[in-house]
């Protein structure tokens, strides 16, 4: 026994081992967080790196001679004349004047620098201001997408530049002189989808998303909260309510595309509702969000301390009064948080909306719940699958907008919880 280490020595040894174990465990935790964080950083860096140029547009500012004779136009208020007039010629002529050494023979190449929609812009400007006819104006037009790509990604091997050497030289020259410049891409935020990447915007998708979310919110929140209150406060505890409970939990785990199929079969085929509209999208997303809202609302109701319930019952409040006056106000922050998180989920949902036709190519910004629309994540899906490389940066930019919406919704949820819990 004498050569045995003393008890203090044994404890010391085991302590060392324990501390080592503790340190190792902490290291695992830090490693896990580091992996998660770096994945997030890589994701953000990739999206932002690819997408920030999406927030820039390339435009050409030049002096345009709005010569009526050249345009075959003598009355800009005449719709028929506007339709027939040539709005391309003044643009080409203006750009030829801007480029030293360019001649009438280069007109096709020069035309290739100007956005095809520039003539529409010019037409609309003349329609608005008929008195501009036969004057010379300094106007700004979108450049051709090929110019846009060249200006933004000249040295990038991932992009193929479609301009020829002559055109590149011109663009370089014009860039230096400030005729071509890049600025904030307001077109991206003010228009709908387009086949031309320079002209494509996400306003249509944003409005579509907002309309869809509105339908989802006004349906899923009251239904979800009412279901949670009934199940938690009024429903008898029996096999049937157990069955309902299990199935609500199961619904939360159903793949979202199934809800899309359901929406297609029920709302569109059975009820004959139109395709691609925010109402149907909202209905489908309501079905998808309901379980989340019900589960989180029930958790919030459960977390209301029983002492408050007892206090109200002890004074003689009826069941309904206990729920309305005490349980609901106290559970509200939790319910709102759950609902906002459910809504954020719905906002990012793509698959079910593909099935109900919200994947269609829609140029116009929707102006109602029954107007064809698409939503942000579907817009990302559409652009990401587009063959034109210029759409990639738009897709990334749209992802950033979507993320901004999601982050602000989650921030709102946190703020609301903090704010409402203070009364507690």
């Amino acid at each position, binding site marked *: 026994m004498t050569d045995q280490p003393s008890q203090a020595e044994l404890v010391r040894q085991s302590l060392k081992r324990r501390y080592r174990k503790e340190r190792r465990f902490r290291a695992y935790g830090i490693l896990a967080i580091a992996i998660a964080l770096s994945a997030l950083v890589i994701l953000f860096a990739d999206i932002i790196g690819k997408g920030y140029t999406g927030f820039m547009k390339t435009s050409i500012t030049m002096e345009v001679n709005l010569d009526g004779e050249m345009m075959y136009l003598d009355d800009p208020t005449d719709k028929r004349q506007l339709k027939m007039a040539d709005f391309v010629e003044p643009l080409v002529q203006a750009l030829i004047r801007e480029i030293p050494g360019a001649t009438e023979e280069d007109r096709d190449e020069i035309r290739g620098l100007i956005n095809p929609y520039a003539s529409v812009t010019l037409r609309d400007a003349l329609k608005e201001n008929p008195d501009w006819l036969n004057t010379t104006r300094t106007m700004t037009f979108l450049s051709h997408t090929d110019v846009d790509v060249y200006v933004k990604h000249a040295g990038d091997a991932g992009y193929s530049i479609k301009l020829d050497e002559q055109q590149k030289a011109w663009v370089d020259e014009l860039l230096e002189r400030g005729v071509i410049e890049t600025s904030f891409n307001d077109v991206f935020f003010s228009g709908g989808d387009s086949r031309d990447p320079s002209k494509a915007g996400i306003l249509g998708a944003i409005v579509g998303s907002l309309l869809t979310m509105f339908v989802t919110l006004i349906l899923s929140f009251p239904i979800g909260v009412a279901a949670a209150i009934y199940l938690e406060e009024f429903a008898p505890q029996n096999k049937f309510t157990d069955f309902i409970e299990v199935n609500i939990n199961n619904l939360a785990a159903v793949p979202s595309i199934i809800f899309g199929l359901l929406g297609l079969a029920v709302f569109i085929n059975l009820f004959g509702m139109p395709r691609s509209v925010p109402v149907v999208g909202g209905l489908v997303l309501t079905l998808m969000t309901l379980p989340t809202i019900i589960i989180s609302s029930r958790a919030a109701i459960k977390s209301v301390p029983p002492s*408050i319930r007892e*206090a109200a*019952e*002890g*004074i003689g409040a009826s069941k309904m*009064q206990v729920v309305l006056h005490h349980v609901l106000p*106290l559970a509200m922050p939790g319910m709102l948080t759950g609902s906002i998180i459910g809504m954020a989920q719905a906002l990012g949902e793509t698959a079910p909306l593909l099935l109900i036709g919200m994947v269609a190519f829609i140029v116009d910004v929707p102006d109602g719940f029954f107007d064809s629309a698409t939503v942000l994540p579907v817009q990302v899906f559409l652009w990401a699958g587009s063959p034109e490389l210029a759409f990639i940066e738009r897709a990334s930019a749209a992802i950033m907008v979507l993320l901004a919406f999601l982050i602000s919704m989650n921030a709102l949820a946190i703020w609301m919880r903090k704010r409402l819990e203070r*009364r507690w």
Partner: protein
Amino acid sequence: MNTMNSSITSEASPQDEATVPVPESKPTDTVIEEGKTVGKPYSDDAKFKLRDVEVFYGESRAIKKISLDIARNEVIAFIGPSGCGKSTFLRCLNRMNDSIDICRVKGSLQLDDQDIYDSKRDVVELRARVGMVFQKPNPFPKSIYDNVAYGPRIHGLANRKSDLDEIVENSLRKAGLWEEVKDRLDATATGMSGGQQQRLCIARAIAVSPEVVLMDEPCSALDPIATAKVEELIAELSESYTIVIVTHSMQQAARVSHRTAYFHLGHLVEVNETNKVFTSPEHELTESYITGRFG
């Protein structure tokens, strides 16, 4: 525990033929006969008339055939070791057990000769007459004023703001809280000290002018000074209300109550005038408990 369900003790019912004398050495050996209570469980001027009350939680029987009268304007204290059923019994008096699904109550419970558990009985009306104060202060997370005004509001006791103001002031005065809070009636109740919160809960309970106030260990979460204040308050309230108080503190029972009922494992063992219970208990179990041999 196991011996207690099957009945009988020689002391509780010496006249009963079926009793088997048991050694009186240890209190846990003593067996209580069901439904037998020594002392004076009945009263001529009964507010509550409770006969053969049994309470079941699922299969287990928490209260075993208790019969008791609670007199008008008396303060009666329920004492006994933990888990003896005194709180459960108290909560039968205003049907607070209703919200527990597995809880069933049997027997006859009458308030002013009307059955409490009658299916036609409106529990809201019952609770307006039989108020309750709980173990932990549980003010609503609202203002002090709203806490007291809540009861009168839901029962429609005040039609005008001035009436309501008056009720609130009177209730707070009775609870001895008015001077402390009159300048901050809009402050949240949860910001008050524990003792103030509990007195606020008492004010809230008496704001609906109940006939009976049930108190479930109202001082167990309070410090001695706050406890003293609440006890003082109970003494004052006893002039106008019937008060049933459950307490773990025998000193408290001795200080505030007129009668004391001793509960043991679901049985009501002994009821008598408080000084009698504490000076010369009739039942062996009561004596063991109050002398601190267990509990």
